[in-house]
C-alpha cells in the first residue's frame, strides 16, 4: 500500500482525536465558565476534528477502494464524526454550544475505542458486498449519533431540573423556618413565569434557581446561565426528531438488504431486534412528549434510557452476542 496514503490516513486520524480532545476540554471550560472566547475557540476545533474524520474515512476509501464502513472501526469513526456534525449544526443554529464538551469527549472516546478495532484495511466479506452498505450503515450510524447528542441534552436537562427541585425544597424550608421564627417571608414565586431575556422572549422556568441565584448562591447563578428547561426540552425533541426517522429508515433499508442477502427482510437477528427495541423506546418518547404532564424530566429519562438501548444495540449486540451482525471471531 502507498506509504504516503497510509501516512495521510494516520495523520488525519490523529488530527481528529487531538481536535476532539482539545476542543472538548475547551468547550467543557465554556460549559463551566460561560466565557464566549472558549466557545469561539472550541467550535472551530470541533469543526476541524469532524472534517479530519470525514477526510480520514474518505482517504481510507480512496486508498483501498473498499467502503470504509465494513468493520467496527469505520462504523465508530463515522459515529463520532456524525455526532460532532449534529452537535455543530445545533450549536450554530440554536446556540447549543454548552453540550459541546460532553459530545466531543464522547466522540473522542468512541474514536479512541474504534482504533482498538482498527485491523488495517480488509476486503468485505460476501454479505457486505452490496450497495446497501453505502445506504444502510451511514443512516443507522447517523441515527445513533443523534441519539447520543440528544442524551447529552437530556442529562443537562435532568441536572438543571434536579437542581430546581433542590432549590424549591430549600426555598420551602427557608420559608418554613422564616414563618416559624416570625422573620420576613421570602418573596418567591414557585410557579413558572416568563420574562424578557437576551433573545427577545425567553422563558424562565426555574424560578427557585433564579431566586437562589438572586440571593447570591454561586451554584444557582451558574445553573441559571444554562438554557431554560423548555429550551433544552425542545432541543432534545428536535435532535430525537432527526434520529428517530433516520433509525426508522435505517431499519427499513436494513430489512431490504437482509431480504436481498439472506432471503427474509426480518429474521429476528439480535441486531434487528435490538434496533427494534430502541425504536420502540424512542416511539414511547414521541408519544409521551405529546402529553404535557409527561413532557420534561420523564421524557428526558426516556431519552437517556433510549441511548442506553442504542449502546446495547450498537456495541453490546455486535461484540457480545452472536448473530448476523457479530464482530465476534
Amino acid at each position, binding site marked *: 500500500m502507498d506509504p504516503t496514503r497510509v501516512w495521510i490516513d494516520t495523520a488525519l486520524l490523529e488530527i481528529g482525536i487531538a481536535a476532539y480532545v482539545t476542543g472538548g476540554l475547551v468547550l467543557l471550560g465554556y460549559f463551566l465558565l460561560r466565557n464566549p472566547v472558549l466557545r469561539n475557540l472550541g467550535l472551530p476545533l470541533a469543526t476541524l476534528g469532524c472534517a479530519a474524520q470525514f477526510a480520514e474515512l474518505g482517504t481510507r476509501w480512496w486508498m483501498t477502494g473498499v467502503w470504509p464502513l465494513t468493520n467496527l472501526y469505520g462504523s465508530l469513526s463515522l459515529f463520532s464524526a456524525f455526532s460532532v456534525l449534529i452537535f455543530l449544526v445545533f450549536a450554530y443554529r440554536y446556540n447549543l454550544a454548552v453540550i459541546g464538551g460532553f459530545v466531543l469527549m464522547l466522540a473522542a472516546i468512541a474514536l479512541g475505542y474504534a482504533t482498538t478495532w482498527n485491523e488495517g484495511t480488509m476486503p468485505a466479506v460476501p454479505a457486505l458486498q452490496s450497495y446497501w452498505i453505502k445506504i444502510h450503515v451511514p443512516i443507522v450510524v447517523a441515527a445513533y449519533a443523534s441519539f447520543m447528542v440528544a442524551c447529552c441534552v437530556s442529562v443537562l436537562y435532568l441536572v438543571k431540573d434536579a437542581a430546581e427541585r433542590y432549590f424549591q425544597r430549600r426555598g420551602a424550608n427557608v420559608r418554613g423556618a422564616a414563618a416559624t421564627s416570625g422573620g420576613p417571608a421570602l418573596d418567591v414565586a414557585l410557579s413558572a413565569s416568563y420574562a*424578557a431575556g437576551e433573545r427577545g422572549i425567553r422563558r424562565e422556568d426555574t424560578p427557585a434557581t433564579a431566586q437562589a441565584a438572586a440571593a447570591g448562591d454561586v451554584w444557582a447563578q451558574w445553573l441559571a446561565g444554562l438554557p431554560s428547561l423548555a429550551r433544552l426540552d425542545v432541543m432534545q425533541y428536535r435532535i430525537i426528531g432527526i434520529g*428517530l426517522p433516520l433509525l426508522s429508515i435505517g431499519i427499513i433499508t436494513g430489512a431490504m438488504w437482509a431480504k436481498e442477502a439472506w432471503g427474509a427482510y426480518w429474521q429476528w437477528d439480535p441486531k434487528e431486534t435490538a434496533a427494534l427495541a430502541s425504536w420502540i423506546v424512542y416511539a414511547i418518547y414521541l408519544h409521551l412528549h405529546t402529553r404535557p404532564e409527561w413532557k420534561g424530566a420523564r421524557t428526558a429519562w426516556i431519552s437517556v434510557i433510549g441511548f442506553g438501548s442504542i449502546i446495547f444495540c450498537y456495541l453490546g449486540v455486535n461484540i457480545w452476542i452472536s448473530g448476523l451482525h457479530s464482530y465476534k471471531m
Partner: protein
Amino acid sequence: MESRNAWVVAAPLRSLRASWDELVALFANVGFGVTLLATWALLTTIGVIVEQGKDASYYAGAYAPPLARLILRLDLENIYHSPAYIGILGLIICSMAAATFVKVIPRRIPRLHPVRIEAIPLHATIQVAGDVESVRARLAAFFAARGWQVRTRSFGGEEWTFADKSNWARRGVLVAHIGFVVIAIGTTIYWAKGYSGQFTVLSGQTATIPQNGATIALDRFAYRIDPIRTKAGIVYQPIDYVSDATITGRDGVPHQAVIRVNHPYDVDGTLVYQATYGFGIDFRLTRDGRPVPGPDRPLLEGEGFVVDGTARAIEYQRFVGTIDRTTGQPGPDPRPNDPGVVIEAFDGDRPVGSALIPLGEPVDLGAGYRLDAARYVLYSGFQYRYDPGIPVVGLGALILVLGLCIAVYSLPARLFVQIRPVDGGSEVGIAATTVKGYDVFEDRFGEIVAELRRTEPGLEPPGPAPSPAFAG
C-alpha cells in the same frame, strides 16, 4: 308489559355499551398504549439477550437451573412466536386503532372557536392605529403574505380572525398509524400465503423446492478465500461464494443461473438465495481389506453412519482445509490445501473418541475395519422464500416513515386574533397554539409579534418596543 320487556332488553345493552365505551377509552389512552409499547420493548430485549430457538439442553447448560426452567416455562426461548408476544402486538394494533378513531381523527383539524387570549400561554397584545375593520384587513394580508391560511368567523356578534399553518400536517400521526397497520397486513399476507425453506445440493446433484416444484441442479460451486495480512496476523477472508446452477421452473425450460450472496435468483416468484456452503465427504469402509457397505452418498457435516454389523457409529463433524503437519492439528487456512476431516466415534449413544484424519489416508477402527475419507465434494446451501406480502410491507414502511417525518418535522400552528376598538385605534390580541405545545413555538411567536410591531403603525411613540407578555 311490552315496554317493560324493552326496558329489560335495553338495560343490558346500555351496560354493554358503557363497558364497550370504557374499553375503547382505555385502549385509546396514551398511557395504556405506551405501557404496551414498553412491554413490547421489554419482551424484544429479552429475545435479544436469551438465545432463541435452541434445545432445552442448551439452556440447561448455559444458565443456572432456576433461570433455565424459567426460560423454558415462559417460552422465552421462542419469545417472538410466543402467545405473549403476538398478543402484545395484537393489543398494540387495537390500541392504535382505538387511538386513531377516538383521538387522532376527531382532533386532526380542530374547529374554529373563540378563546380567552390571556388564558393561552403564548399571547401578546399590541395597540395599533386604525379602526377594527382596516386593522383586520391589514392583519389578514400580513399573515397571508407569510403563508398562513387566514379565516374569519363571527361568534356572538364578535369577529375573530384565525390563521393556520401546516394544517395538512395534522394528519402526520394518522398517516404513521396507517403505515403500521399496513405493515401488519403485509406480514399477515406472508403468514397466510408465503413459504420459505432451505436445502443443500452437492455439486452435480439436483434438489426440488417442494412448494412450487422448481428444480435446482448445482453444476458447480466455487468460493474465494484470500489470506489478508492484518495487524493481528494473517486472516483468511471470504471474498466470494458462487453457485452455477440450472434452474427449471413452471415453464419446464432449464435456465442457467449464477447465484451469489446479495444476488438471489427468481424462479416463478420464489427467490433462491446463496446461504451456506460446505464439503461433503465420500467415506469408504473396508474390513480386512475388502469393501463393506458404508454410506451410500457423500456425508455432510453432522451426518453419520453405523458400521455394518457393529454397535459403532461414525459421525462426520467438520472439514479441515489444511492440517498443520507439525502439530497434527487443524491449521488456520480453511482452503483445502492438505485437507482432513474430524470424525467422532460412538459406541451406541456413547461417544468413544474423535480424530482428525487426513483425506486419502485410511484410519483403523479396530476389528479389521478401516475408514477412508476418500474425497470431498463441494455442496451449496440455499434458502428460498416466497413472500407475496413484501410490496405491502414496503408500502407500509414508506407510509410509516412519511407519517413520522410529517409528525416530527412539521409544526401545525393556529393563531387566534381578536381585534377590539380602543381610543385612537385598535387593540390586537394574539394567541398561538400548536400540536406540540407552546415551548417549541415560543421563538417563532416572538418573531411574529416583533414583526407585527415593526410593520403595524402603533399608537405608541417610536421607542424601544415592550416585550410581549407571556403568561405561565
